[in-house]
């Protein structure tokens, strides 16, 4: 009899364990009501600009999710010693990059590459200079954990978030969850995807309303969008062929094989292998993700290692100093025939004038992207 009772007790115990936790808001008990306010993506990506990007289907924009992501982005709590936030190296006034050649992490440690600018990320499929990440959700974990950036551990971060009232409140509002690093990455993903820069003068006249440009900008636009060729009489270049890798309204090529990941003739050998270190293919050494030129006025210093301090330095590189013998140089640049453009001072000034039309002052000062902890 005792044995039968024991069997019964075991079966009961096993089945009892199936009983749902009455505190679980999803399954029984008193349901906890959270209804985040869904944001229509067309309000973020309006028609007539860059089109609707492919968005993560499991992470719809919500007012609460975006705001949570914004708080997390600017919260130094995400670093080990609570000294720096994502926003420390990605400053809004600099199109979410910063003016240092290489960023400084906690304890003064230096990052390996120049901080990437952050905007129009919804249209990219590869992230970081070496194009090693494919989703923003995965991307955010890297700087948070990098020893020379925020140096945080995820268990500790989850603990810190879980002890903070505003996160207890906002994780619940946004995801119906307690603070955790997975929903943290989704909130950051939401916020980062909302960083859309679309109001520059360039984006107002693109593609082709030339009447909105002054003469110098017009000449610069023709150089930017012209194929490399040289005038038979003067010998001057008539095209700088920037558009192959920086074309379209986004001023960026997003197909890796069409110039989206390229060697732009900086080096003959590669102290930083870039994309080649990711793929292991020698043919990819020295290739880096092609950045957008929108807001280029404020995103210096330039290139993956921040080697060029000014926009003039960048123009000088493409005009006079491209290493056409670099073994993995972009075929589209190699096709120029190992001939420097040798732009005149006027041409350089025109090209710069055109590039300056790409500054989106509304984006750089948009309060929706600003640090919510600053009053």
């Amino acid at each position: 009899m005792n044995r039968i009772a024991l069997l019964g007790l075991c079966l009961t115990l096993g089945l009892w364990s199936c009983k749902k936790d009455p505190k679980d808001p999803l399954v029984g008990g008193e349901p906890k009501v959270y209804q985040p306010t869904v944001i229509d993506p067309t309000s973020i990506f309006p028609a007539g600009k860059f089109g609707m990007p492919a968005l993560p289907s499991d992470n719809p924009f919500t007012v609460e999710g975006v705001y949570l992501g914004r708080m997390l982005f600017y919260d130094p709590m995400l670093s080990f010693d609570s000294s720096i936030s994502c926003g420390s190296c990605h400053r809004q006034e600099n199109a979410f990059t910063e003016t240092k050649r290489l960023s400084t992490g906690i304890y003064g440690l230096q990052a390996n590459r120049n901080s990437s600018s952050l905007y129009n990320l919804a249209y990219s499929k590869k992230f970081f200079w070496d194009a090693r990440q494919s989703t923003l959700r995965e991307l955010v974990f890297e700087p948070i954990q990098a020893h020379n950036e925020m140096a945080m551990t995820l268990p500790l971060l989850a603990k810190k978030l879980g002890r903070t009232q505003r996160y207890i409140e906002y994780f619940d509002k946004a995801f119906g969850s307690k603070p955790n690093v997975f929903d943290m990455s989704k909130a950051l993903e939401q916020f980062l995807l909302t960083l859309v820069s679309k109001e520059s003068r360039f984006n107002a006249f693109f593609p082709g309303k030339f009447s909105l440009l002054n003469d110098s900008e017009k000449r610069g636009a023709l150089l930017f969008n012209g194929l490399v060729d040289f005038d038979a009489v003067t010998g001057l270049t008539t095209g700088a062929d920037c558009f192959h890798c920086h074309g379209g309204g986004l001023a960026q090529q997003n197909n890796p094989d069409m110039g989206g990941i390229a060697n732009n003739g900086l080096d003959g050998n590669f102290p930083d292998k870039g994309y080649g270190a990711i793929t292991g293919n020698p043919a990819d050494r020295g290739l880096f993700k092609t950045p957008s030129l929108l807001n280029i006025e404020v995103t210096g210093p330039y290139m993956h290692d921040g080697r060029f301090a000014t926009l003039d330095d960048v123009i000088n590189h493409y005009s006079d100093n491209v290493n056409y013998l670099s073994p993995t140089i972009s075929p589209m640049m190699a096709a120029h025939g190992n001939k420097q453009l040798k732009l005149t001072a006027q041409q350089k000034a025109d090209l710069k004038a055109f590039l300056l039309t790409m500054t989106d002052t509304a984006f750089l000062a948009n309060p929706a992207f600003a640090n919510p902890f600053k009053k």
Partner: protein
Amino acid sequence: MKNRILGCALALLSLGFQACEDPIEPPVVVVEDKPTVELNFSALWNGSPLTFLSGWFEQPLTQKEYIQFFNFGMIVSKLSLVKEDGTEVLLGDGYQWIDFKKGRTQFKYEVPVGKYKSVKFMLGMDSAVNHGDPNQWGAEHPLNGNLTGMHWGWAGGYIFQAIDGNYRDSLTDKYSKGMSFHTATDVMVRSFEVPVGGALGAATFEVKDKATTSVGFKYHINRLYQGIELKKGSVSHSEGVKEMALMQKLLDNLQQNSAFEIAIP
């Protein structure tokens, strides 16, 4: 005996716990319930699959040249199958982006049952579409310029075919020279009808109900390059007198050298 009872108890306990797990869904087996055609594009050099960023393909000229490919994509429109009786069946909305490097080469379409004699398409598209807004298309549409990168972004419209790479005069050369052929602008749009069974066009393939018919589309890229000496011109973006002439020659090669072939496994 005691051990048996204990064993039973543990088994029941384990059963009880196991009952908590979410039910496991059986794997979904996709069975085509409609007549379907699967188009498989492949790029070949003298019959061998084209590779990217590895190997050098020999151009059999008097003075040989060696080509390494970096990128090869094309945008087609009005992609259709032609029935035995001449009826044309548009595949999807007719637009497709084929990218041989990325392996975006396999496309499935639902089509009426019947016998088909050819594949028809335009390399490029109508002028109005070519010069329309590339942002009007859905995020995954073949004409979305941001997806494909096959758009010049300014006034030039789409790139219908992009072939980029390097070439060398000799395999012992230390440095490579660039090669870039971008087919674009309205005057470079070409139409093709590729018969099953080659130039004789005598064969057909049959699409049956509730079945998928595989159709191979082979692009013999060596035939595109026939007679092209890269040292005399390795770049054409379809603009300017010299570059236009070179692009015309490449496109003529496509048509005259039967660069496309339909293969039914």
